């Protein structure tokens, strides 16, 4: 099999397995429909290009998540300079728990949750979207380059802070 056809085969496999995830990630990162479509295409293109260098140093899933999130970060950074106008989680008032996974499954709450996610700083946005995709702390740590403990601690704080904001906007 030639290098290009191997790359094509890997891309076809990755797109079939993670295509829906890429769509959700584009939606969580970009509110504007035209730019969202551009971002989705950028992610697919970056994924295909990156797979020429796929060497099995990590699982295909980890590879796909990394490329997709890095592409999204670069895309968003072009429109909003990183972290400018975005809020740190400390700026969000803390209160009670909220079942984010259930919110992510519910169509009428998805866009509201995505709107909140888009206000977060880059690292927090990445962490939360990986959590919503169902990755555990160890997998998220692999993708992000942090320890599982650091992921668990950050996620706990992030969920608590975001739950408050999510409920407040629901009542507003």
């Amino acid at each position, binding site marked *: 099999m030639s290098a290009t056809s191997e790359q094509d085969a890997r891309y076809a496999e990755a797109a079939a397995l993670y295509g829906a995830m890429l769509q959700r990630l584009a939606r969580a990162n970009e509110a504007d429909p035209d730019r969202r479509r551009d971002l989705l295409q950028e992610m697919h293109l970056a994924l295909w290009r990156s797979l020429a260098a796929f060497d099995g140093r990590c699982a295909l899933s980890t*590879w796909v998540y990394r490329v997709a999130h890095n592409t999204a970060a670069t895309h968003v950074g072009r429109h909003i300079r990183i972290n400018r106008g975005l809020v740190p989680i400390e700026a969000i008032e803390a209160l009670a728990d909220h079942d984010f996974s259930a919110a992510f499954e519910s169509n009428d709450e998805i866009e509201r949750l995505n709107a909140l996610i888009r206000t977060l700083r880059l690292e927090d946005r990445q962490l939360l979207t990986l959590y919503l995709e169902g990755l555990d702390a160890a997998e998220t740590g692999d993708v992000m380059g942090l320890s599982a403990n650091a992921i668990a601690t950050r996620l706990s704080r992030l969920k608590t802070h975001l739950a408050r904001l999510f409920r407040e906007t629901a009542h507003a």
Partner: protein
Amino acid sequence: MSLAEIHTRASRFRTQIARRNLIEYAAAALVIVVFAYIAFIVPAPFVKAGAIVLILGMLYVVSQLHQLARAAAQDEINAAADLMGFHRQELVRQRDALRGVWSWYLGPLIPGAVLFLFGAVLSAPGPLGAQLSVGFAGLGLLGAMFAAIGWLNQRAAAKLDADIAAIDRARGG
């Protein structure tokens, strides 16, 4: 996206990058042509020398921009790096470009700009004292402008340094 579409887009992407680079170089080429024309038609030796030194400075700046663009392209190749590593790499690249603004952008343009300025005022009619007054006033303005650009870049670099340190702390580095 189908594979055929991916291949088409990859090809279009390369064309877009090449076109974008061409536009940047064309802008620099335009400035170079204008100063080359000035060097050719103006007889005053300092103006001529200033224009030539400015052209050399501009060529150096363009070569450095080219290096920075190559570094950015390298970051795209590293798209499968872990997220914190990728983000850190991007911040370091931006910080180094901002911090080194005197050596790769402002500095190389200073000798030509000063020579050109004094060449222009000294070749204008009037007593030497008045010419020098205008020259030093212009030099002050030029210095203030360059200092402001340098200061803003250093401030932005310091902010990125803080962001990089935060990532290192998070990674236990």
